[in-house]
């Protein structure tokens, strides 16, 4: 089966890889490029633990092929912190106890990041709708909503 030579930019840095057609984007990110902050939780496009930004849009990377990302921009949780400064979303999750086991957290934060790019002042209901593709089993979502509100208020 065909191998494809692909080039993807992850958090601003270009990476090249030889991949099989069927390689899932999440496996490229985790197993090949070793950005292990992106997790896998369900395999059936339900949980959102694998959420990354593809050309700025949050998507479930278990349901995209690595070759489909060829030539595109990816952003993972590892790209949130800039110059040793936590992103306000990261601060919010820490301040407001928006995580417990931390497994869904990277995906949840990436969805939140994209939401705040679109809507700088989301209501509680808008936040709940926006994160409804990301499952959390620990927090009951209350503090996640607060964390995202914290970031919204902090962001310029």
């Amino acid at each position: 089966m065909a191998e494809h030579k692909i080039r993807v930019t992850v958090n601003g840095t270009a990476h090249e890889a030889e991949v099989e057609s069927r390689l899932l984007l999440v496996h490229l990110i985790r197993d090949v490029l070793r950005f292990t902050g992106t997790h896998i939780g369900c395999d059936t496009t339900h949980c959102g633990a694998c959420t990354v930004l593809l050309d700025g849009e949050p998507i479930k990377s278990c349901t995209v092929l690595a070759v489909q990302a060829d030539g595109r921009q990816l952003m993972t949780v590892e790209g949130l912190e800039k110059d040793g400064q936590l992103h306000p979303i990261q601060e919010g999750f820490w301040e407001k106890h928006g995580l417990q086991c931390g497994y869904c957290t990277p995906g949840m934060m990436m969805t939140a990041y994209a939401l705040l790019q679109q809507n700088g002042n989301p209501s509680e209901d808008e936040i709940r709708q926006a994160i409804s593709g990301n499952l959390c089993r620990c927090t009951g979502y209350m503090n996640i909503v607060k964390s995202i509100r914290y970031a919204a208020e902090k962001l310029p």
Partner: protein
Amino acid sequence: MIPAAFDYHAPNTLAEAMALLARYGEAAKVLSGGQSLLPLLKLRLGYADHLVDIGRVPGLEYIKEEDGYLKIGGATREVALERSDLIRSKYPILLDTALVIADPLVRNRATVGGNLAHGDPGNDHPATMLALGAEVVATSPKGERTIPIEKFFTGLFTTALKPDEILTAIKVPIPASRSGGAYVKLERKVGDLATAATAAQVTLGKNGEVERAGIGLTNAGPTPIKATQAENYLQGKKPDDTAITEAARLAAQATAPTVDRRGSVEYKREMARVLTARALTQAVQWAGGH
């Protein structure tokens, strides 16, 4: 969960894409948003030797009004409907629909064309497009053809598309003034397919009578269902509670659901009735009838 091996092709033009489909025939599948196809391949419930990704084919993503139609490019993402001012202001039924498909992350990838071409009676756009009386544009090396939506769904997971055809556009006749529509879905939770759902699109005449009613039902049988009897019944009538109740009853009669974890046959049928009444009421409100 890992798909069986396949070859991936990323054509850069529609012509290339069609050539690939022509070459591989039944062994190929079109990859659009991939949000239904890839899970199927990962579960190994579906197989394909070749995937032809139309994601790099230009000119398949647009939402515009032209020549009396709302035209939606086949590879238009669901999220584009959510964000479109045109859709938000003039096509509430399409906004309703886009907002309840799967979840927001899936909608960033999933396409309107894919939602139709998958032929899944549980998908949401088929009912909407039935209610709107849309047409599907299929393109093959032989050219373009237009398929009326009511002829499009031929069976469970099958459509009128031929192996060498790509769903390149959906055309919705621009509704007359005093039109309105709604999509009402009962789902167990966000991300679920409908237990039952109804799309209703209504155009009112000068005296407030129903000039045209379109009703589509989701997950109510092996294919998406157009509730023709209910539509005909409403024609020319004042859409009051009595008329809506009767139309909803007729719509439920058109269903042939199967039992699954979402509910029994009886429940699904009754929900088709309840939701049809709710969708019609909202549609009439939008149309300015109440």
